């Protein structure tokens, strides 16, 4: 049992190492999602020019439009890169648990999303005249990433085998992820409006609950998605 766990962890880490190394060399995913998120925030900032009274209403929406759309862009690339180079078949041929493949791929995307958000959040705060360091917003972004990436990795693996894969992923993914996005926007709104932590915690728990559901379901279903 211990040996099995050790092998499982090694498989996840090896796949993550490969994805991080490849991304470090090409920067294909990181740059595309970062540029997209930055552009979204800058354009919204000029379109709305939010005054301090309305910023609590507008800012959460702007932030999560940027995060979710650029996240989908990154998720799309995750499996397209594997598929284009035949690497997906290479992964399927590896004698490892399918859950390890899922977690390895999801962990890579999770890190790319976190990097993007760490850069975007200060820019967002400066543009909207908000405090640069908001731990509540960081906590919401971090927790939401888990569910977002778990569900997104599953749907990305489904969409990559379809002809209109760039179109299919958002079409399949967003309806499934709506509850999480609603909780993230509501929670972010409370943080930006300066509501007490006790109120924000309620939304954090809801996000965490959905993370668990998404993570368990996606891990279990992933095996069937890989099969032809």
């Amino acid at each position, binding site marked *: 049992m211990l040996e099995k766990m050790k092998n499982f962890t*090694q498989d996840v880490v*090896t796949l993550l190492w490969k994805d991080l190394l490849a991304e470090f*060399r090409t920067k294909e995913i990181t740059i595309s999602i970062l540029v997209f998120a930055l552009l979204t925030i800058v354009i919204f900032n000029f379109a709305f020019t939010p005054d301090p009274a309305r910023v609590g209403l507008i800012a959460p929406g702007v932030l999560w439009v940027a995060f979710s759309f650029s996240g989908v862009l990154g998720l799309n690339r995750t499996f397209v890169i594997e598929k284009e180079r035949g*690497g997906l078949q*290479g992964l399927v041929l590896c*004698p*490892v648990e399918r859950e390890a493949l899922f977690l390895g791929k999801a962990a890579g995307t999770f890190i790319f999303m976190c990097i993007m958000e760490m850069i975007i959040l200060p820019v967002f705060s400066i543009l909207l005249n908000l405090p640069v360091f908001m731990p509540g917003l960081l906590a919401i972004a971090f927790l939401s990433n888990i569910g977002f990436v778990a569900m997104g990795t599953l749907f990305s693996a489904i969409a990559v085998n379809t002809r209109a894969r760039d179109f299919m992923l958002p079409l399949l993914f967003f309806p499934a992820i709506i509850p999480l996005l609603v909780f993230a926007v509501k929670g972010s709104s409370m943080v930006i409006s300066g509501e007490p932590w006790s109120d924000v915690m309620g939304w954090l728990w809801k996000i965490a609950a959905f993370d668990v559901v998404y993570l368990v379901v996606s891990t279990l279903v992933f095996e069937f998605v890989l099969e032809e």
Partner: protein
Amino acid sequence: MALNPDGDRRSPLDYAVKVEGLTKFYGPLRVLRGLNLELKRGEFLVIFGANGSGKSTLTRILSTLSRPSSGRVFVEGLDLEKQAQQIRQRIGVLLHNSLLYNELSVYENLKFYGRMFHVPDLQERIKETVAQVGMESRLRQRVGTLSHGMQKRVSIARALLHDPGLLLFDEPETGLDFDALRALMGIIREPSGRKRSAIITTHNIEQGFEWASHIAILDKGQIQFMKDKKEIDASSFLNTYQSVVC
């Protein structure tokens, strides 16, 4: 357990590959039609067939990439339906795609696959397999900068890295130069202390004959012809092939 043509009783454990009534549908298209195949350990089967005869589909099913629509498949004595993960550990697969990552070096690619296959003494094994395919000097070079033929050599090293008992090679000669083709046979049959088997699909009859211990012709989703190479007259095989395929 049925009596085999040799008159003795064999279980699936005695075979490198045993296929019974294998059928594969792609939508309404039936690619394999109740295919039967037996390959004993240590045998090298070369399968010839025209385009669309089902060669690649058979390779994909045996390598666990594709599920049969019906029929039973045993690879290295293991049931494909229930023991796919164990089968993956025992097969070395070479497909049309290199299955390599262009932005990683030859060494990094082999290290990745070696760790995924839990290969013991990985550093040594990488050195051995890279030497076998003559790519020692390119170990630190990125795969994306290699020629197609060199990528194919690295793919062969990848397929051999975990010392598999059964090799499944789909048209391995594509992109390889004369020297590499000659070396490939020695690489495949390298003494590894046990009987290694292989199923190789190809269009190249001359090359296939050189590799094979047994020859088969796949047509219309079924094995139409299968014999020990010793029983076949090489000079008239092209006529046999054409009469079976046409």
